[in-house]
């Protein structure tokens, strides 16, 4: 069924596959040259009578990670929509499309695909953003407002940045040394069992003394993320960050759990486990129902302590609490629950992303209360990039200085 292709047409196909891989690379998918060669060979070998076969062949040869499947789908759909794809590209970028009365909600990964095909086309920034930000920061209240949230889609650059930031992240936490051991040729302790086991296979002959070393384990990570009105501008970035942490299998965290809280507490761990960041964020946006509402930190912590802490805070888990600490409600409750959380967590790290100026003094009641319970306190002055977030964790904690200020103030 291999269609008889003349040499010229075949050459164009090869060229087009090459262009397509370039587009994939621009969309953030790493494709090696050997893979491209396999793809071309596979297409030549299998031939295709249907477009869908071509799609499957390219997918099997060019993609190696589940999280890239969605991007591949989008890039494929745009690239091979019609053979003269440049024309369609022009059409896509023309202003008529912008003014179409009803704009379809973009599929996950579409933005990355569009960017990849339009070169370094800059996306327009939203001018309203500054204003929104100001409003959001100045108002915080305890009212419960049910809101769903739609996030902007990720650009390829943003994704690369998230990965970089996660890799650079240096939390003040060391791997846990366990009582278990693992085989290690140059380990500190002899391993009599392994030595005898090896000897038994060699008719009792001991070839060398096996050795072992203590096994270290990476602690679990639990992130509690404030998504109330005052934090709303940052929530997308924080979630993006959490998604990257969840999927950084080599980064050295055990299990990663993520919760969002505003007026209520939502477990978003499973939503973040979805491969594609856009899909994951969209699910989080749907699942948590208290976006940009008020904050009840104390109540949220109480619920966490009661319903989740025994399940997720086992064996020395590290808790990152991301909030501005502006509590409207009962300070006694906050005090009690923060103390409990601090006792059950291996380490409680507080990140305050809203520290706006250098001379910040811990005057707000909630801030003071929380400060006395956390193990370390980090702050960044603006949270416009994930780099800032990573840097904040890298700096020395501010807790002791702040606590001293609280004491002298009293």
């Amino acid at each position: 069924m291999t269609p008889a292709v003349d040499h010229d047409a075949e050459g164009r196909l090869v060229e087009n596959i090459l262009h397509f891989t370039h587009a994939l690379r621009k969309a953030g998918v790493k494709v090696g040259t050997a893979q491209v060669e396999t793809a071309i060979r596979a297409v030549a070998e299998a031939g295709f009578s249907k477009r869908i076969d071509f799609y499957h062949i390219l997918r099997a040869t060019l993609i190696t990670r589940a999280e890239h499947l969605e991007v591949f789908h989008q890039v494929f759909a745009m690239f091979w929509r019609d053979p003269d794809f440049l024309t369609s590209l022009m059409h896509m970028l023309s202003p008529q499309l912008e003014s179409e009365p009803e704009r379809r909600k973009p599929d996950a990964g579409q933005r990355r695909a569009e960017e990849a095909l339009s070169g370094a086309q800059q996306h327009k920034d939203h001018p309203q953003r500054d204003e929104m930000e100001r409003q959001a920061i100045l108002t915080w209240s305890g009212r419960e407002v049910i809101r769903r949230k739609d996030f902007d889609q990720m650009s390829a650059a943003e994704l690369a940045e998230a990965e970089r930031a996660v890799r650079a992240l240096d939390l003040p936490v060391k791997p846990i040394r366990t009582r278990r051991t693992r085989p290690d040729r140059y380990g500190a302790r002899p391993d009599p069992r392994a030595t005898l086991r090896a000897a038994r296979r060699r008719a009792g002959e001991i070839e060398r003394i096996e050795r072992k070393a203590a096994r270290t384990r990476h602690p679990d990570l639990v992130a509690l993320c404030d998504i109330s009105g005052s934090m709303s501008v940052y929530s997308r970035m924080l979630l993006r960050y959490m998604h990257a942490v969840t999927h950084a299998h080599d980064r050295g965290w055990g299990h990663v759990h993520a919760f969002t809280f505003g007026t209520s507490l939502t477990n978003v761990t499973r939503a973040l486990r979805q491969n594609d960041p856009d899909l994951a964020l969209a699910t989080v946006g749907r699942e948590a129902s208290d976006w940009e509402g008020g904050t009840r930190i104390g109540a949220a912590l109480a619920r966490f302590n009661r319903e989740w802490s025994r399940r997720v805070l086992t064996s020395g888990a590290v808790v990152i609490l991301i909030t501005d600490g502006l509590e409207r409600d009962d300070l006694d409750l906050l005090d009690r629950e923060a103390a409990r959380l601090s006792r059950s967590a291996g380490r409680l790290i507080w990140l305050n992303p809203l520290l706006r100026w250098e001379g910040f003094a811990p005057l707000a009641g909630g801030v003071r209360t929380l400060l006395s319970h956390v193990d370390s306190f980090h702050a960044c002055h603006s949270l416009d990039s994930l780099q800032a977030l990573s840097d904040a964790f890298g700096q020395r904690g501010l807790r002791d200085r702040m606590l001293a200020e609280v004491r002298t103030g009293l």
Partner: protein
Amino acid sequence: MQARPDTIEDTIALLSAQNYVCGRDLGTVAYLALTLGKPLFLEGEAGVGKTEIAKALASALGRRLIRLQCYEGLDAASAIYEWNFAAQMVAIRTAEATGSVDRDTLQAELFSDAYLIRRPLLEALEPQDGGPPVLLIDEVDRTDEPFEAFLLEALSDYQVTIPEFGTVKAAEAPIVVLTSNRTREVHDALKRRCLYHWVDYPDFERELEILRKRVPEATEALTSEIVAFVHGLRGQDLFKSPGVAESIDWARCLVALDAVALSPALITDTLGALLKYQDDIARIAGAETTRLLDEARRGLMDAE
């Protein structure tokens, strides 16, 4: 020995004759793996039929299936080869007793083919009756990273180097299937040498077909109800959604209980075949079951 399939359709038909129903995507990838001689890397949730495809391929092509189950701490000695030390010792003692053999002959004899214990990877490279075998490397994500390095040599050139013996190279490349449950990310270097495929839950029609093939004794009405209900379950927020393996198990349970149609009480009693976490069972048992069943029935009615 069955000949290699010539087209994608042939591959799908071949697998289908072994009661393995696969979509066109998996069929294409399987065909490519057979034609290009590249390993097939399958990732996906537990119970979607990753291991089954290797078995189906082996029996369809009349090849031997060699299985390497991976686990933490798997080393070269138990995956590739090992010298039969005890037999070597006996040979040395015998040589000592007779006192006739010179050193070089003994050396050559001790490290010869006869004293080599073959483990799955080496075995797969040797010629077999009926053609090169199907090598299934199951749950490769459970091994340690150093082991992946062994696999790299074995899978890219289909050869293994034994220092005392030389290089063993397969005359004809075996058909290799690797599976992973994605408990950790397998290194890209390994994946790039393979054809990658993410095995998803099947859609309604395909799962129906799978159940018809696998559990032919169930009535048609029961089968469609089972599939509709399981599909409803997969939409729920569960700790572990039921895979195809679970729906086949469940269908067999229901057939054993002589069921002809689903009822909430029956579902609650047999839910253990479908859901494997207490939290999930507690969530679904009771009123939720009735709701899901009603929804499934409504869906079936609409489809008709």
